[in-house]
């Protein structure tokens, strides 16, 4: 306990000292240096050196990590707290009130935009999961000559900035005669989502090795039976993770939706963007708080169910939801121990 406290204090001192030095250097670059700044910089540098020298690395890093968690959650905490603000202007605290929750639920523009977002996200995640999983299965174990062109395409959909995809989609939709709306948003979201699912699922599929599929084929199972009985059960966590990622991306997307929504088809993020333009009210915060609560509850329940069912099976831990969905192309690496249980023969690719 004491060690942790020392680590936290040392990390705080480290960050403060580092900031003091940085501010001083920035001032130096701009040419305005005060005596206070110089003293601060010297003290800061001394603190940094002392912290690095005298505090053991694990404690220092632990304290640092705690600070990063605070940084990650502080803004969300602020959103939740200010959802209970009585005043009309969100940033000026005028007292406690829950009235904005009621107002948010009664506001048709908010509820309808959330409904629209949910519809788009469900549809996009479903289609992207099917397309992406199919592509991942097909491409995981083929020769580079076939794989590389597809990989390039996949890579491009991920590295081209979202803004560029958004404007290209806008030009295309307008010129191909599509009317901008829910369907165009769904199509544009699904593009990125399909790549996301392909990446996550393929990473897992490749690391699983092909021995069981081969055995299944040798025992006379057709591709469909092999998929249902051998591949899917083991691949399911990755498929679920991909679907969740896709859903999250689509539900939270601002840029692509902003360009491909047309008039009067606000999704929830677009509703927030609109509120930001005209001064945000606490009703947006109240809605976000309720949504966060529902999501956390849902995930806690799902995690509980998975844990119970995993314990009953006595097999691998709660892979699907207990494991965070993201992780770029390297999802399996997040939990290497589970691979070994499933893969007695180390046949890769």
């Amino acid at each position, binding site marked *: 306990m004491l060690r942790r406290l020392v680590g936290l204090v040392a990390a705080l001192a480290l960050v403060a000292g580092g900031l003091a030095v940085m501010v001083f250097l920035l001032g130096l670059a701009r040419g305005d240096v005060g005596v206070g700044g110089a003293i601060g910089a010297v003290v800061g540098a001394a603190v940094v050196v002392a912290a690095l020298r005298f505090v053991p690395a694990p404690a220092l890093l632990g304290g640092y990590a705690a600070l*990063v968690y605070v940084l*990650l959650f502080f803004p969300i905490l602020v959103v939740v707290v200010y959802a209970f603000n009585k005043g009309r202007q969100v940033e000026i605290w005028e007292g406690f009130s829950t009235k904005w929750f009621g107002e948010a639920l009664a506001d048709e523009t908010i509820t309808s935009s959330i409904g629209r977002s949910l519809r788009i996200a469900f549809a996009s995640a479903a289609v992207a999961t099917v397309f992406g999983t199919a592509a991942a299965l097909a491409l995981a174990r083929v020769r580079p000559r076939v794989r590389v062109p597809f990989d390039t395409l996949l890579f491009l959909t991920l590295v081209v900035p979202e803004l560029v995809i958004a404007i290209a989609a806008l030009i295309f939709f307008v010129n191909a005669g599509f009317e901008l709306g829910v369907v165009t948003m769904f199509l544009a979201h699904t593009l990125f989502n399909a790549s996301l699912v392909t990446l996550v699922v393929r990473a897992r599929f490749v690391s699983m090795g092909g021995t069981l599929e081969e055995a299944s084929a040798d025992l006379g199972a057709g591709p469909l039976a092999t998929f249902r009985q051998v591949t899917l059960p083991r691949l399911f966590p990755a498929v679920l993770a991909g679907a969740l990622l896709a859903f999250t991306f689509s539900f939270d997307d601002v840029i692509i939706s902003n360009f491909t929504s047309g008039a009067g088809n606000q999704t929830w993020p677009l509703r927030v963007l609109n509120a*930001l333009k005209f001064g*945000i009210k606490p009703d947006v915060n109240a809605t976000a708080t309720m949504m966060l609560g529902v999501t956390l509850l849902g995930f806690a329940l799902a995690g509980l169910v998975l844990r119970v069912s995993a314990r009953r099976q006595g097999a691998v831990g709660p892979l699907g939801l207990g494991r965070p969905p993201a992780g770029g192309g390297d999802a399996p690496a997040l939990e290497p121990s589970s691979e070994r249980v499933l893969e007695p023969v180390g046949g890769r690719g």
Partner: protein
Amino acid sequence: MTTAEAHSASAPAATASGRRVAGALLGVAGVVVAAALYTQIGSLGLGLAPSVALLFVSMPLFVGLGLVLARRGGADGGRGRYPLTLAGPSLAFYTAFFILPLAFLILFAFATPVGFGEVSYGFDLSNFDAALDGIYVDAFLRTLRFAAIGTLLTVIVGYPFAYWLARYAPAKRKTLLLALVIVPFWTSFLIRTSSFLIVFSDSFFLSRWLADLGLTDGRLDILYTNTAVQIGIVYNYLPLFVLPVYATLERMDWRLLDAATDLGATGWSAFRQITLRLTAPGLITGALLVFIPMMGEYIIPLVLGGGRVDLIGNVIGRSFLEQQDYAFGSALALLVMGALSVFIALYLYLSTRSEQEFGA
């Protein structure tokens, strides 16, 4: 599939190369037909739903194309392998909603603007000429600076954190601690960003505390400045960096460090020569993963910059949503992509080199 592969494998070389040419030709023809189809969908007088239905009906074309490619590659089938045709839907989708839109973007960049959002196609370089104007070059350089500083700060904040998570985090709670990095993603990105409007406002306790400590003279002049945008950028992209770096750090064999210290290396030089070099691929991937979207950042400057911080993404966005000058916006976007491709090439070079070096 198995028979098809066996057949193509036993076929003489001459037939194989003939088939290859035929496959390539068919592929090109397929793309041309698809392009014609998709670009004319609107003028066929169909509604949106029939158009999308048409798209899905036309998919067998690509599935056929995939079949031809598969035979050409001779890699389809095999015991327990899934047929390559499964990639057909994705391929069709990418063609329709990625390659074609990008083709349109290029077409528009070289077109002459006539009226709002309309162009006449041609080969007109005036858009690029306009896009290379000093104001826009400045905006681009400003964006580059924001992205570079943002990436650097993200690395400084994120790498030690990922290191702790991979090496020192209590093993029992690791999954939970990792999940906590994702949880912020469940609150809308816009909401998280806009919460900084509260945090940086003068009525928030942070402003008063800093003033009481004598660090500011009463007002926290951060909101609607570069600093606010920079903080917002780092905050939003941090998890995106932490996760891939954590994935590489997780695979580290920490005994290597013990060996190094046993052999007389100091902690720092062991870190530099072993950990840093072994995790370099993940570090580079993570850095690029945040750098590229930072270059196209559009929303954060809008929210936290309050219109006073103008990045290149905002210029491009405005030219589409406000000025309706699609041709100019397309040209500017192409130029930015061109500049970005330099970084992507650098990344590819670095990551393949480090992979060869360490067999990662």
